[in-house]
Structures are given as C-alpha cells and as structure tokens.
C-alpha cells in the first residue's frame, strides 16, 4: 500500500466490496507489530485524546506565547447563543478544529493528525458529524483509520511537512484525509472518497507555511477551521456525484511538486509572507524582549 496509488486501492476495495477502512486496517495488521484488537485499542486512545482536547479548547485556553487563545470558546458561544448563518455542523467542525489547535498552542496534549499544526481538522470534522451520521464507536475509529491510510498515501507520494511542502502539505493533507473519511462515514463509495480527497486537496494547493514568529499559532489555528470546512464541502460534492477532473493521484503528485518549487522563505522558516508583515515583525520582537505578548500589545 505504501507505494500503491490511491486509485489502485479504490479499485481493489470496489472489486471486493470492501471499505477503505478495512483495507487500511488489514495493512496495519500485516505490518506485524500489533494485533487487530491492539490497533483498534490504540486508535481509540487517540480518539479519546482528541475528544479531551476539543472539550478543553471549548472551555477557553491561552497559548503559551500569549498570542492566541479563546477563539474556540468565542465560536462556541456564538453558535449556542446567536446561531450561525450557515449549517451549524460546518461551524461546529470549524470550532472543534480551532479548539484542538488552541490546546496545542497552550502546551496541552494533542494527537498529531498528521502533524501538530494540523491536528484539529480530522477530529474536528469527525466529532461534529458523528451524531448526525449515527456513528458507533467502531465507526468513529474507522473514520480515523481511513484518514490515516489516506495520509500514508499522500505522505509517501508528496509530503506531510510544512518545512518540505508548505501548509498545503499539512492543512491541505489533513483536509483531504478528513474528506475521504467523511464520505465513507456517510455511506459513499471508495471512488467517491477518492474524488473528495482530490477536491479537498486541490482547493488548498499552494498554501504557504508562513508562521508568525515561527510559532504554531498564526495563521495555523484559523487554517484548521478552513481545512475542516473545506473537507466537508469536498465530501458533500463527491457524495453529490461531482468528480475531480484531475485524478486523485495526479493531484497528490501536483501537491508534492508545488512544495518542491516553493521558496524556502515560505516553508516554515518565517522569512516571508504573513511572518514578515510589520505586525508579525513587531510580535516577533516583543516575544524576544518580553517572552510573551498579550492583547494590549496589539
């Protein structure tokens, strides 16, 4: 599977009437490190970490630098007291994704999915949709397995690292992984998961990694919100029968290729983009002088 293309995995599953989750789980068993029961147990522990991070983030946390925090709480209050303009599940997914990434920035415990900076997207979508889709605990674990397997394919053909491929490799990949898993959780076919993955990834191609003061905060946290919402749109489009004109494996390779063309200044070094705006430079200077910043500094 590690060098197989996504389309081959899709055909394999469709020919045998197998889910992507079953396929990816079988491959994990074949690695020989853990039994099926142990794999499922470890994945459930990861899910519990994700749930705890969402709950903590919604209560309101502050980042270690003082630069960010409290936005998930704001979004939660808005959603419960004011009600969002759009469908509340979209906003809930965004809120969950922000919550997890705020916990990450506060030095809380998170599960990297696939990285710490993009850890909110997959669980953010899962937790927002599990009741609506009536997902059993096992189906929620399968959601993570399909996300993880899709991430393996993306990582081995392109990249999952901001330093290597920009934010498209982190938030883009996480969004694509969540889109494929959401399609499967909603009863879509493996082929539709492939289209959802392609659509989600295409929408975020070219996204640079330009973190203010090199911290995993600005713009990372808010990009987790857009990654989550993008995953849902892509999944719904695929479920509606929309197909990606560019095949999924070509989209993945294009992401890798764009990453390699991306200047170093836009790959996690904080030497360009948002990280070099006047405000970002001021934040960087204040952090070096004071160690932390707060609202009054902006």
């Amino acid at each position: 599977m590690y060098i197989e293309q996504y389309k081959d995995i899709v055909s394999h599953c469709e020919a045998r009437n197998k889910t992507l989750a079953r396929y990816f789980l079988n491959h994990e068993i074949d690695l020989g490190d853990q039994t099926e029961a142990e794999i499922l147990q470890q994945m459930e522990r990861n899910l519990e970490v994700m749930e705890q991070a969402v709950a903590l983030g919604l209560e309101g946390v502050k980042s270690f630098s003082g630069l960010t925090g409290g936005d998930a709480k704001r979004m939660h209050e808005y959603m419960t007291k004011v009600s969002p303009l759009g469908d509340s599940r979209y906003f809930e997914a965004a809120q969950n994704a922000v919550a997890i990434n705020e916990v990450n920035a506060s030095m809380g415990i998170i599960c990297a999915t696939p990285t710490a900076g993009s850890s909110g997207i997959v669980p953010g979508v899962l937790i927002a949709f599990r009741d609506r889709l009536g997902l059993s605990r096992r189906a929620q674990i399968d959601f993570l397995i399909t996300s993880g397997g899709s991430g393996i394919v993306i990582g081995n053909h392109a990249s999952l690292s901001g330093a290597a491929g920009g934010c498209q490799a982190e938030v883009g990949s996480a969004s694509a992984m969540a889109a494929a898993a959401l399609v499967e959780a909603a009863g879509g076919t493996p082929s539709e998961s492939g289209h959802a993955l392609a659509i989600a990834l295409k929408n975020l191609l070219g996204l640079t990694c330009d973190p203010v003061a090199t911290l995993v905060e600005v713009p990372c946290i808010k990009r987790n919100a857009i990654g989550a919402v993008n995953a849902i749109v892509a999944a719904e489009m695929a479920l509606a029968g929309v197909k990606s004109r560019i095949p999924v494996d070509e989209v993945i390779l294009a992401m890798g290729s764009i990453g390699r063309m991306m200047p170093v200044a836009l790959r996690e070094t904080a030497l360009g983009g948002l990280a070099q705006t006047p405000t970002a430079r001021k934040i960087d200077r204040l952090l070096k002088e004071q160690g932390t910043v707060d609202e009054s500094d902006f």
Partner: protein
Amino acid sequence: MPIFQSLFDIIGPVMVGPSSSHTAGAVRIGLAARSIFGEHPEEVNITLYGSFAHTYKGHGTDLALIAGLLGFSTESVEIKKAYEVAAKRGMKVQLYTSDELTEHPNTVTLCMRKGERALCVTGISTGGGMIDITDIDGFDVHVSCDEPVVLVFHQDRPGLIAAVSSVLAKEDVNISQMEVSRKERGEIALMLLATDIEIPERAMRAIEAIPDIGPIVYLSALKRDADALESQLEG
C-alpha cells in the same frame, strides 16, 4: 523505502504541543540526559543553539527540557510548572542562548552537576519527536533512544570491545549498531552498543566485571508517544 508505513505515523503520536520538534523532542532530550547522568542533578546549565535559541520561549522548549531533566510525565500542566518543580526539588537551572553556528538548527547542550560529579550532553531534535544525542562529555556519539543502548566508558586498549560483545552474544542479545569514540589514544574511550532487545541485568553485571571497564550507563528505549512515555516513567 516509503517514509510512512503505519497508521500511527499519521494518526499520532499523542504529544504535548505545540511542536513535535521544539517541545516533544525537547522532553525526550531532557529525559535522555537525565538517564545518562543517572541521578537527579543539583544544577543544570542549559545552552540553546539555532532555532532552539530563537524560538524556545513560544514553544516552551526550556520547560520541556527541564521537565525531561526532572524525569516527570509529559502531562501539560506539569510541564508548564517545570521551573517551580525544579526549584522545589532542589535543581538549580541556568539558561543560556548561543549564536554559535551548529550543524543542526535544533541543538541543545545540557551540563549537569551533582556534588563533584559533572557531565555534559548535547542533543538535537530532528522532527516528529525524534532525537539524536550527539555528544556525551566530548565523545561523539549517536543515540536516538528509539532502541536500548548501553554506554560503556573504558580504557582504550585492545580486546575490550570483543570482551563486551561476547558477553552480549552469550545472552543472545543482538547488537544493531556499535560506535567507539575516544579523545586520545590509550586514554578513556566510550563504547556505544545499540541492541534489538532490552539487555538483561546479569549481562550488565558481567560487562562491569571486565577489567578496565569504567562506568556503564544503560538507556532503555524512550517511547515517542506521550501516553506510552508516561506509563514507562510511572512503571
């Protein structure tokens, strides 16, 4: 060889935020340094280089290193209080940053002291919580802490390496990697043996009994997953 093989390379590790390299990796370097020193240090001088020196505050790299040096769990609340806990447990911490260029941007040197005994360890954080200990008291080494390692300080003389490896062979412990480092010919040398499985206690005693063998340090593999690391520390 594909980079990613397991689902848990993608969904995991469970770790303390915000950065796998600047926080989770730093905890592991601290833990490794403490294990190499072998006891609770009274005083620690931390020198940060490169990206560690520039961004440690926002990533809590200093807290993570101290947490590791204290040998406690990677739970977030605990890590945030690392300075207070260090003060309470009588560990004096001095933090320095250096402009000196290092080969790797995420480099730190931890100099530990207890009474007359002192030891310096340099480590780098290579990403995803992975680390490499590159220097122990001036000896060039490579210790990832992903597998068990035994460090043997010994007199630099013929036959000692064979004597140590034959003890392990008798115990059916396979050596996966071996390095020997010395500062001067005939002086003290450091032998580093990484093994596939944990080394039994009696093999350690047998190595210690070999003439001209100095202190031995045994390092168990350090898990990368915060949960696993924690249970390992409790156990």
